[in-house]
């Protein structure tokens, strides 16, 4: 590849400048800062693109235009190309095939023909500058030797040995097979071991925690248990405190019950028995006393009773009959009295009748009596009426007088009745005898009045005569008075009628008297019978009877009195019996009770009662207690059903209290021990953070992994590089050294015959058939020549099968003497047959090669 020309539109200091180049050696001459370095840079840029490919950072960007713009005219294998490169906002490459006219647009790529040699290699090998050579002067021989032997002067590459050394250093920092020092991996391993140890320790601590945990668990359970026990203690104590008085009462009761002798016997006796017993006894005494009084009373009464003799007894036995007889006597007396009365009445009647009849008729009484008696007053009256009717017509006037007379008669009648009443009263009551007499007088007056009226009645005319005959017939044999016929007022008839009435009454009285007499006889018979029982007819009945009745009366009285006493006695006796019954009942009850008491007293009643009294008083106390117990039945029930009643005692409650205190103390201890254990657990757990350990472990493991990988990478790289280096040297070093020897001999005009490498990789020279070490042999110039020889040899080696690239020598010959320079140019001329050569210099060139003078103005 040849560069025919480079046209700079703008490239650093070069503006609108064309550099025309020859295909062989080109000497580019310019003063300092004329742009020689710019030209080398532009050649590099032309071949490989801009570096850096950034307008802001590229050193040759024109300050005013802010760009690079240039193009090269090149020939590759005879084909001309135009290569245009621009660096504006971005790099741009245009390759124009001037034969075919094809255009290729790219960015900042290398030219396709230089692809086999990198820009670094190109810069390092094809560009030899004064700076590099001057640098040799300040370098140690060892360094120079290394650069030449190991790197063949390829300065863009680090020396393999340097790279290996750097890697060794890094590797040693990571890992050492000899286990010396503390490389990172060893540190990590150590730290990991520490972590593992810490972890194991931690796990052990955690294992120990198991003990603590168990301890905590045990303590927790203990506390729980204690709490339960404590609760139980408190509850039990509370309960027992409640039950204790109950129990005490209960025990008291039991004790009292024990005190009660013969309890079974006692219990059979109802509690009120003693009271009852005493009451009964008292009652019995009272009743007995009362009974005695009654008995006495009975005796008194008995004594008071009358004793009858035989006659009296007889009388009394006959009392009923006598009583009857007494009645009969009364009847008899009454009959007697009646008889007297009737006899008196009859005699009075008879007298009256006698007087009447005597008044009416002048006939003997008996005759008049018989006639009137047989007369029919009604017929008479009728006859008379008839008579008077006939007579009436003439005698009406008399009628009025008659009626007046009749009025007088009525008044007489009333007087008569009143006088009769007075007589009766006077008859009945002796005190009123005077009244009777007076009444008799009045009666007489009345009768007189009456009779006056009767005389006025008179019979009438012819007919009247018949009638009068009839009427007279009626009165036959008697003779009628005269006035009769005139007696219209019928007074006579009335008197007849009255007489007839009296007759009738007299008859009746007579009949009654007879009847009374019969009755009296009958009564007398009865009385007699009563008195004698049939015998003793000889004794005056009435008197006897009256005497007997008198006796009877007395006897009856006595008997009545007796009976009264008897009644009383009977009552008393009944009461006595009642009392006796009561006493018996009481005695029965008493003996029933006594029997119990006797039993209780083992046959001794008083003892029994005493026992009972004592037991009862105990019983009362018991019942007071029991009442108290039963006042809270629930509590008493719970006492009764309490499982361990023997535990209900103050001592046990105290024990519970003590136990509770003990438990609380133990609990307190357990709690603090538990807290301590928990705190310990927490502290241990806090001290060992497993997750953090794991985190570090993981990170370290990852780091170890990375570092191991890194170590392996480094080791592999080192091995590869060492191997490559060795192989490269073995394969290339002999050729290069031969070629370096050749070039060196040519450039030094045969002084340095050969370049050798010792066993220990030291450069040696054969000078005048003598082997010399590099350090002894060389001047600055010779060293520069050796360096150039190496470069050229390497270029030849590199370019064996690759397109030859331009070689740039920038002020490379400053240390050359003329002879060696001439010899060197000869060498370069040979190279120039294959490579285009650019020799940049600020010194006036002495050789007739294509010369390019850089314009002065560009260097200003």
């Amino acid at each position, binding site marked *: 590849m040849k560069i025919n020309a480079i046209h700079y539109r703008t490239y650093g200091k070069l503006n609108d400048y064309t550099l025309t180049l020859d295909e062989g050696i080109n000497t580019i001459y310019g003063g300092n800062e004329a742009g020689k370095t710019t030209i080398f840079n532009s050649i590099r840029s032309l071949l490989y693109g801009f*570096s850096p490919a*950034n307008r802001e950072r590229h050193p040759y960007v024109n300050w005013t235009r802010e760009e690079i713009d240039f193009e090269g005219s090149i020939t590759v294998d005879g084909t001309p190309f135009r290569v245009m490169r621009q660096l504006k906002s971005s790099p741009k490459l245009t390759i124009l095939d001037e034969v075919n006219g094809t255009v290729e647009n790219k960015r900042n790529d*290398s030219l396709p023909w230089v*692809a*086999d*040699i*990198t820009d*670094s*290699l190109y810069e390092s090998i094809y560009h030899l500058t004064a700076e590099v050579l001057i640098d040799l002067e300040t370098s140690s021989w060892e360094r120079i030797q290394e650069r030449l032997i190991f*790197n063949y002067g*390829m*300065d*863009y*590459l*680090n020396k*393999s040995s340097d*790279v290996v050394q*750097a*890697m060794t250093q890094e590797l040693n920092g990571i890992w050492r*097979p000899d286990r010396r020092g503390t490389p990172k991996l060893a540190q990590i391993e150590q730290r990991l071991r520490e972590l593992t140890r810490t972890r194991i320790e*931690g*796990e052990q601590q*955690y294992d120990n925690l198991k003990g603590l*945990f168990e301890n905590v668990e045990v303590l927790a359970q203990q506390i729980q248990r204690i709490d339960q026990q404590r609760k139980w203690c408190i509850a039990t104590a509370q309960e027992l405190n409640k039950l204790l008085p109950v129990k005490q009462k209960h025990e008291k009761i039991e004790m009292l019950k024990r005190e009660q002798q013969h309890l079974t016997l006692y219990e059979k006796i109802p509690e009120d028995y003693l009271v009852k017993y005493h009451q009964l006894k008292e009652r019995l005494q009272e009743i007995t006393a009362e009974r005695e009084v009654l008995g006495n009373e009975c005796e008194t009464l008995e004594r008071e009773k009358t004793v009858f003799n035989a006659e009296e007894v007889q009388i009394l036995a006959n009392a009923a009959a006598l009583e009857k007889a007494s009645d009969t006597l009364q009847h008899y007396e009454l009959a007697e009295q009646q008889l007297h009365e009737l006899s008196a009445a009859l005699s009075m009647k008879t007298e009256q009748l006698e007087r009447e009849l005597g008044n009416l008729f002048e006939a003997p009484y008996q005759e008049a009596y018989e006639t009137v008696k047989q007369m029919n007053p009604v017929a008479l009256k009728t006859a008379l009426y008839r008579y008077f009717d006939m007579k009436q017509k003439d005698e009406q006037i008399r009628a009025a007088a008659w009626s007046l007379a009749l009025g007088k008669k009525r008044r007489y009648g009333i007087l008569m009745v009143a006088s009769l009443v007075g007589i009766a009263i006077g008859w009945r009551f002796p005190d009123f005898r005077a009244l009777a007499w007076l009444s008799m007088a009045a009666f007489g007056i009345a009768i007189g009045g009456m009779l006056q009226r009767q005389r006025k009645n008179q019979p009438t005319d012819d007919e009247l005569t018949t009638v009068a005959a009839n009427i007279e017939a009626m009165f036959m044999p008697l003779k009628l008075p005269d006035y009769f016929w005139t007696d219209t007022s019928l007074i006579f008839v009335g008197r007849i009628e009255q007489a007839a009435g009296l007759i009738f009454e007299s008859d009746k009285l007579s009949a009654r008297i007879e009847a009374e007499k019969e009755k009296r006889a009958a009564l007398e018979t009865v009385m007699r019978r009563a008195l004698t029982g049939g015998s003793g007819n000889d004794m005056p009945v009435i008197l006897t009877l009256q005497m007997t009745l008198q006796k009877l009366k007395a006897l009856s009285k006595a008997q009545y009195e007796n009976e009264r006493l008897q009644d009383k006695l009977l009552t008393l006796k009944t009461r006595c019996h009642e009392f006796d019954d009561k006493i018996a009942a009481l005695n029965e009850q008493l003996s029933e009770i006594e029997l119990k008491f006797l039993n209780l007293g083992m046959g001794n009643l008083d003892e029994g009662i005493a026992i009972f009294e004592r037991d009862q008083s105990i019983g009362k106390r018991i019942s007071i207690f029991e009442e108290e117990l039963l006042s809270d039945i629930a509590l008493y029930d719970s006492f009764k059903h309490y499982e361990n009643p023997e535990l209900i005692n103050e001592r046990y409650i105290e024990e519970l209290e003590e136990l509770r205190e003990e438990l609380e103390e133990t609990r307190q201890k357990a709690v603090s021990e538990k807290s301590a254990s928990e705190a310990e*657990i*927490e502290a241990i*757990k*806090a001290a*060992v*953070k*497993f*997750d*953090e350990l*794991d*985190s*570090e472990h*993981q*990170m370290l493991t*990852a780091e170890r992994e990375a570092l*191991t990988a890194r*170590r*392996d*990478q480094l*080791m*592999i*790289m080192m*091995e*590869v*590089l060492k*191997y*490559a*280096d060795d*192989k*490269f*040297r073995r394969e*290339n070093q002999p050729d290069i050294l031969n070629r370096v020897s050749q070039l060196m001999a040519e450039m030094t005009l045969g002084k340095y015959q050969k370049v050798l490498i010792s066993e220990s990789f030291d450069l040696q020279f054969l000078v005048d058939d003598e082997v010399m070490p590099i350090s002894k042999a060389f001047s600055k110039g010779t060293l520069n020549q050796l360096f150039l020889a190496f470069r050229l040899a390497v270029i030849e*080696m*590199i370019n*064996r099968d*690759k397109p030859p690239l331009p070689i740039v020598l920038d002020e490379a010959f400053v240390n050359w003497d003329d002879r060696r320079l001439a010899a060197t140019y000869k060498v370069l001329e040979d190279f120039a047959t294959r490579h285009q050569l650019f020799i940049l210099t600020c010194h006036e060139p002495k050789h007739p090669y294509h010369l390019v003078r850089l314009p002065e103005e560009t260097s200003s």
Partner: protein
Amino acid sequence: MGFCDMLRLLHLSDLHINAGFANKSAYIREQLKLSLNKSFERAVTYAVNHKVDGVMIVGDFFDQPQVDYALERFIRQQLTKLLDHGIHLFYVNGNHDPADTMSVLTSFKANQYFHIFDSDSFKRETVTFESGDIGEFIASAHAYKGEQRDLVKRYPVKSNAYYWVGMAHASVVNAQSTGEKTAYMGTTLPQIESLGYDYFALGHIHIRQQLSERVAYAGNLQGLNYKEIGGKGGLLVTLSENSAVVEPVDFNEIQWEAIDFEVTERAENLYALETALADNIAEHISDLGYPPERLIVRVHLYGRSKCYHLLRDAETINDLEIAISQRLKLLNVDLKDIGLANDYDLKALAREQTVLALALEIMDAPERHPELLTRLYQLPVFKDAATVQSRDALLREHLETVRAELVDRMLKVPNEN
């Protein structure tokens, strides 16, 4: 008799409730712990609010037997809440919390709603739920840390009309996993399905996944590290006579996210890189709709960049992480180099006639250099390689990893100025 209604179970596993977190920041670690607790609290609240019949914790409830005081209290409180609400708790011991190691749970054993499966010979518990439904719960536990036998093989086959629910903290072959996980209690899906259960709840693998209609891993409650990304929680399992409905429910308080980011030549400097990274993360998390202050984002960096050297500097990376997390208000940002390289033209370098080119050539075909291989295979890294193939593969892997670095090391750092 079962099947009168339906059975609702919350399937959880691998809570690792007392796990340590590998984060350099103590603050973040604390946040992760608190959030894990909060996630568990959420799960419990969910169970209570949704009145589920039971909660299954299929192993690794705990990361280790040692539980600190505060956490212990918290766990007791939460479990008590569940049990007090009459929710049955089915707890199977896992490899992290094998049988008889968790003293925290001892006190719950007497609770009628607490069912612990702590025997390596399967336990079967017949539970009558409040609804009247009856469930048969079968599980074997990890009796010790290293249980690898297939205990599921011994489970009884469903033999009545009740709901049959199996549980196992086990590795099922072919289940998706975040990395190499020890095949504790390894079993297979056909093995599980052959039991004919209504549902089989799995634990151990932290990725929530349904292996079949009735077999699922609940995954863990909240991601434990950068590998455990995305929403996490459990599964709400609704069993009815004819169907099993398995729905994921998220409980995670903090969410881990991972993003790959290619550092290109456009990121010429750190500021540009920071902006590009922030934009990229912002775009990613805006899709999530998750509060950034509860997100931990890991960014996997790869690509060629001139910032390569800067990005290899821990301090720079740390500054960058802080700047981005502050900018986006994220809980944490973690930048991880998974293949950063300088922007050298490796191919060109390889074509040169240099020791570097030779080294690159060797790395491309190490097999051509038996002498080197002999030396390499003596290195400690290959000591544990089981087979020649695995050793060769490992070597290639390493050579691939170191290529860019070797180049970078060999090349002189260009003067930045």
